[in-house]
């Protein structure tokens, strides 16, 4: 099993997301994350999909996605030639006794504290998946209440 990041440029038609996600479930492809949002061209969106599978199924995923009528283009974002970012929000149980420890850890990762309550903190971190995984692993020492991740977005480096 390997992972691939696909960047898909799609027209904003009704049902476009369901056409894309339906293709994954119907053909039994694995989807790890999917993010969609606006882009530089009005009426179009960029969708970033992280999919996993063997070489053959990843090739089929790319071809089947390219075949969708709403898809204008599809690119594979190769690791060395692209940047990926993901945002994670983590709610950690942190009363006065451990609050400072959590904040120090967040500082090391340049994460932001975006909400503080008597018993908990919400931390925001942006980074690639490796950085986020490492941060979450370190926070395991505290009591994590909830995690929400956006899934990655990515762009190829340079022009073309």
């Amino acid at each position, binding site marked *: 099993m390997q992972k691939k990041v696909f960047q898909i440029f*799609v027209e904003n038609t*009704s*049902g476009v997301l369901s*056409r894309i996600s339906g293709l994954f479930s*119907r053909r039994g492809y694995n989807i790890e994350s999917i993010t969609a949002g606006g882009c530089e061209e009005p009426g179009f969106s960029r969708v970033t999909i992280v999919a996993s599978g063997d070489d053959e199924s990843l090739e*089929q995923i790319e*071809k089947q996605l*390219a075949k969708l*009528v709403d898809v204008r283009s599809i690119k594979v974002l190769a690791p060395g030639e692209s940047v990926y970012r993901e945002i994670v929000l983590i709610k950690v149980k942190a009363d006065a006794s451990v609050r400072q420890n959590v904040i120090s850890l967040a500082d090391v990762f340049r994460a932001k504290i975006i909400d503080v309550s008597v018993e908990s903190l919400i931390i925001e971190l942006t980074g690639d998946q490796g950085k986020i995984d490492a941060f979450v692993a370190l926070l395991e020492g505290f009591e994590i209440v909830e995690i929400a991740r956006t899934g990655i977005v990515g762009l190829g480096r340079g022009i073309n």
Partner: protein
Amino acid sequence: MNGADAIIKCLEAEKVDVVFGYPGVAICPFYNSILESDIRTILIRTEQNAAHAASGVSRLTGRPGVCAVTSGPGATNVITGIATAFADSIPLICITGQVDSSLLGSDVFQEADITGAVESFVKYSYLVKDVNDIPRIFKEAFHIANTGRKGPVLIDVPIDVQNAQIKQFKYPETISMRTYKPTVKGNAAQIKKVARELAKAKKPIICAGGGVILSEAEDELRMFAEKHGIPVVSTMMGIGSMPTRHPLYFGMVGNNGKAYANRAMNESDLLIMVGARVADRAVSQPDLITRDKVLVHIDVDPAEIGKNAGPTIPLVGDADNIFLDLMKEDFNCEAEELVETLNGYRDTMEKKRTPNPEFVDPAAFITRLSEKMQDNGVYVADVGQNQIWSCGYHVVKNGKFMTSGGMGTMGYSIPAAMGAKVAAPDRQVIAVCGDGSFQMSMMELATMQQHNVPVKIVVLKNNYLGMVRQYQHFTYKDNYSVVDLSGSPDLEKLSAAYGIDFLRLYDMEKCDEVIDAFLKEDKSMILECIIDPMDLV
């Protein structure tokens, strides 16, 4: 002009001659407007058959067939017909009425989310929300359905959109789609590569699929094969791409095909797979078509190339264009010895049947029938044992062979034959079905009579769902379960009830005489052939 009028104008602009369908409240504005048009309407007796009939039109004309049904159950009934067309890449335009757009999503009477339901069976679908989008949507829909890898497109039109006034009707002359641009022209470098490999090949074979027929490349295939003396086999959907008795044609491949065709394909040193999906029934062991050989895979759908077998030379494009380009290449191919070898295979490997003389032998009957058919006759095979016999023994001369190959939808033959006959009234159209598949569509006898569509129907009667019975014979040691068709109607009386002429053949003795009577006049006729219930394909 309201939305429904605009839809009719779009259909006229696309030169649609006939719409098969079934009305209901949600599609009534459409059926009201069509009265003002010269477009013929045919009231089918169940919606699934509207799509099959449109498929018959499409396969005869090369243009999308059109069906129009109402919302809710009308729309859900048509799904099997859409899925059947999708599996065989047949272009259709399926118009469904929908409840008032302000009520969408509130589960009102006869509301079904049809665009959602058909998502995996259509090439594309539209839910029309603004009446002013109708001209663009129809222009796009016909374009999408009939270009690239062809397929069905569904257009769901809420009743209020059909009734709304359109500001200005202008049917677009050109397509301006920013996302959809299928590749139809083969890559020049790849074509040269194919020519170089063909020059080296000693045992080249072409395997023609349904894509050859869809791109209307039959003549180009034949000319290319003849120019270089390359033998041709076909998949089920490719039957008819070459005349059956052409000296270079060696039958259908696959687990229900000819043993010599499979052997020819597997032993080749260069295989050109064109317009075929390499699916399980045609190629049960994909490694046999890649091992020790150059595999050239030509398809207009890039996703089919390499899906089931990794080709040496992938070639994306329309079969028609690619054969024309290949014919411009200068090379010599020495395949004369191969043709001799394959003729030898055919002589020794043709299946020997031992028909029971007390019954009609379906194999011999089908061959006799097709020999006596008009040269450009249309033969529609249903699904079941009848389909396999048809594939094995029907002789295509200069006509068409149609069947539901991908989905294997029982009941396809009668409505598809009706569509074909409506599209080509001058041609002889024969549906060949079993007694099971006949009963799945026998309600359409009324449609044939009402609309004067003189289709001829052969029913191979064995009182069983023969294909399943055969499967249970081999797999479950004759433990038959739910395959007995007792209770079927007396076809002679049924034909009389519909006012259709009827003939029955009990054995081969009067075969020629009965076939002559069956084919003599251009009118609806049912010919029942009593076949051995225990016969195997």
